[in-house]
């Protein structure tokens, strides 16, 4: 064990003393900070060029309201008032122009207007059918929006909302229904999303809390993502160090002093220590922030315990896989091709976290969280999502993952033992299997 400790210590100190560690340490907050900063900085960088669009109004009753609403919008809604009271334009103006060729044949008209859009004389055009207010029928009842910039959705969405409101108003009015009454009866229902009521230790009823998006979505995702990042920041490094030792022929010297299993275990423990250092820093910062903003109640203490448990399991599982891969390769390009399947397994939770968050106790969520390579992150996600998985599933996930992790360490050690001194053999899956089943 003393030798395992020596390897672990050296592995750990080599990692934390490297520039890569400081870069890695800053990476997570930098990514988050950069994302926020980018959003703030690009918020005001919208394309403010005027959106001029032609309106062919065959109903003869809607252009005026579009023009009026556009004018209202252009005078107020496109500006943001800053703290000093100054106004800054943050959205483009919408400039409707009436197109009089209402008698022209539809296809000819569309072609002509399309050409004007292509020439950048117009941004889009709108053809309102003669029976658009009635809304019954096909072509004549249709309101069609044409553009070559289909990714820009603000204008069609605005038009949809303005026309919907106006046409409904006209319909109610023509039906002789009072506008004030319609508005009063159409008011939104008072709908609240709540958790469940609880009973305190003293038998008192605790009211249900209102849904909090930070707790509902933020905490589970942040927990899973942090787990993912911690695995990503330590396990692939393990592959690099094993490969470096092999390429520089250091492995042979080490194996003369320690057994391959001791060497691999020491290296994995070094990666575990590195990861724990990072998690102490990150989780410590998170706890500090939650405490500062008086949000500590959002994350129960048991969650930190589960986080530590699943982090350790993930590190041993992926650590042995990456150490094994490093041992069988003699060159970086071999390692890269073998790394791909392992990376897909690590990233699996990132592909399926959304359906799990939507229905944490569905059959899909249950199975995916019991699939060992994904269990640490998926079960963590489910644990952080209300109502949480049944206890038997958590227990089963632990049994399955511990067993699978032991299997990974065992197979990794067998591959490591043979691979670490093998040179000039292209690693293939068949060869790896042979090494695992060999005595």
């Amino acid at each position, binding site marked *: 064990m*003393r*030798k395992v400790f*020596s*390897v672990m*210590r*050296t592995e750990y100190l*080599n990692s934390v003393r*490297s520039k890569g560690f400081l870069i890695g340490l800053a990476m997570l907050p930098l990514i988050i900070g950069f994302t926020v900063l980018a959003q703030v900085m690009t918020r005001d960088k919208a394309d403010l060029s005027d959106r001029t669009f032609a309106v062919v109004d065959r109903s003869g009753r809607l252009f005026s309201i579009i023009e009026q609403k556009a004018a209202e919008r252009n005078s107020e809604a496109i500006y943001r008032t800053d703290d000093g009271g100054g106004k800054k334009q943050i959205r483009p103006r919408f400039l409707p122009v009436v197109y009089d060729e209402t008698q022209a044949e539809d296809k000819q008209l569309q072609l002509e207007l399309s050409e004007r859009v292509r020439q950048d004389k117009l941004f889009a055009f709108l053809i309102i059918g003669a029976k658009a207010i009635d809304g019954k029928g096909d072509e004549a009842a249709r309101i069609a929006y044409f553009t070559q910039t289909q990714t820009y959705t603000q204008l069609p969405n605005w038009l949809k909302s303005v026309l919907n409101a106006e046409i409904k108003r006209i319909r109610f009015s023509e039906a002789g229904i009072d506008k004030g009454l319609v508005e009063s009866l159409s008011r939104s229902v008072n709908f609240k999303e709540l958790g469940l009521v609880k009973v305190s230790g003293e038998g008192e009823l605790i009211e249900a809390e209102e849904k909090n998006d930070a707790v509902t979505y933020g905490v589970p995702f942040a927990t899973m993502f942090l787990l993912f990042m911690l695995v990503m920041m330590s396990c692939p490094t393990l592959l690099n160090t094993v490969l470096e*030792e092999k390429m*520089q*022929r*250091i*492995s*042979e*010297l*080490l*194996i*003369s*002093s*320690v*057994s391959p299993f001791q060497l691999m275990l020491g290296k994995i423990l070094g990666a575990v220590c590195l990861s724990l250092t990072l998690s102490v820093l990150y989780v410590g910062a998170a706890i500090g922030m939650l405490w500062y903003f008086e949000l500590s109640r959002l994350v129960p203490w048991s969650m930190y315990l589960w986080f530590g448990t699943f982090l350790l399991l993930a590190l041993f599982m992926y650590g042995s896989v990456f150490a094994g891969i490093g041992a069988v390769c003699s060159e970086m390009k071999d390692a890269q091709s073998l790394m791909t399947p392992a990376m897909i397994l690590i990233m699996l939770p990132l592909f399926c976290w959304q359906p799990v968050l939507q229905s944490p106790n569905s059959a899909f969520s249950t199975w995916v969280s019991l699939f060992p390579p994904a269990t640490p992150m998926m079960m963590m996600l489910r644990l952080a999502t209300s109502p949480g998985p049944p206890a038997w599933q958590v227990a089963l996930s632990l049994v399955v993952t511990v067993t699978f992790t032991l299997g990974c360490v065992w197979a990794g050690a067998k591959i490591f033992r043979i691979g670490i*001194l093998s040179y000039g053999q292209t690693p293939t899956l068949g060869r790896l299997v042979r090494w695992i089943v060999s005595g």
Partner: protein
Amino acid sequence: MKEVDLEAVGLRHVSKRFGSHQAVDDLSLSVPEGSVYGFIGPNGSGKTTTIRMILHIISADAGEIEVLGSVSTRANSDQVGYLPEERGLYKKMTVRRQLAYYASLKGMTARAAHLAIDDWLERFELSPWGHRKIEALSKGMAQKIQFISAAIAKPKLLILDEPFTGLDPVNLEVLRKAILELNKQGTTVIFSTHDMAMAERLCDFIFMIYEGRKVLDGTLETIQQQYGEDTVRLEIDGGSRLLEGLPEVERILDQGNYQEVTPSGDPQALLKALVQKTRVKRFELARPSLHDIFLRIAGPEAQEGQAQ
């Protein structure tokens, strides 16, 4: 030669195969405690495989290996120092940290390792380089660091695979002295080399392996005795050119300033033939050198003979 009795390393009927290649074939060997044992043999003959099996880096397919009294286990690995053929140093690590790491793997405490590092760096005049990274060192310096890492824990058994490769004569002499010093203190030394002159100078025993099999094993004297005084060392005007084609000459080993010749019959007949052709400055009946013996076993002529 020192008095030796106990066995530091014993190999009994050891074999190792890699695929279809028989790397070591039924090898038995006994390395006495306190001796300097030289492993010689052509490239690919099985020297490094044998060394790796002694170190338990790889396991033998058959046979028994005893190292410092422990049979087929790594129990005594802390008492064995190793300098591999392919040098293994962390380029980005400083000299001191690297040596401290290797020392800790041999069970040394941090304090003992610290003192030993000071001592070795001073002895090899490398003290100013202690806090420099390995990548900043010259090849010779790195070689010395590699040697220190093998010797730092005062091993009972020191195994050196090609320790002198790439060293200039000054560094070579420093290393040779260090090896002998350790040997005087009781360390058994096994080293493989292609430098026959160094093997003759340094080794108490010489073992030659060829195509996985032991072909020589013993002291230099006993090995040479096997061949008898069948060699003539010659120094003649005209050099080896004049010897070519002479029926009295079986084989010539040109050493530059002199030639080692194996006569085909009576050496006196050779002397008579030479005197008639040129001026003979030296004519000495001698035992063959290790270099000559090596070539007789593994040289092109021997291989041709085997093929026939």
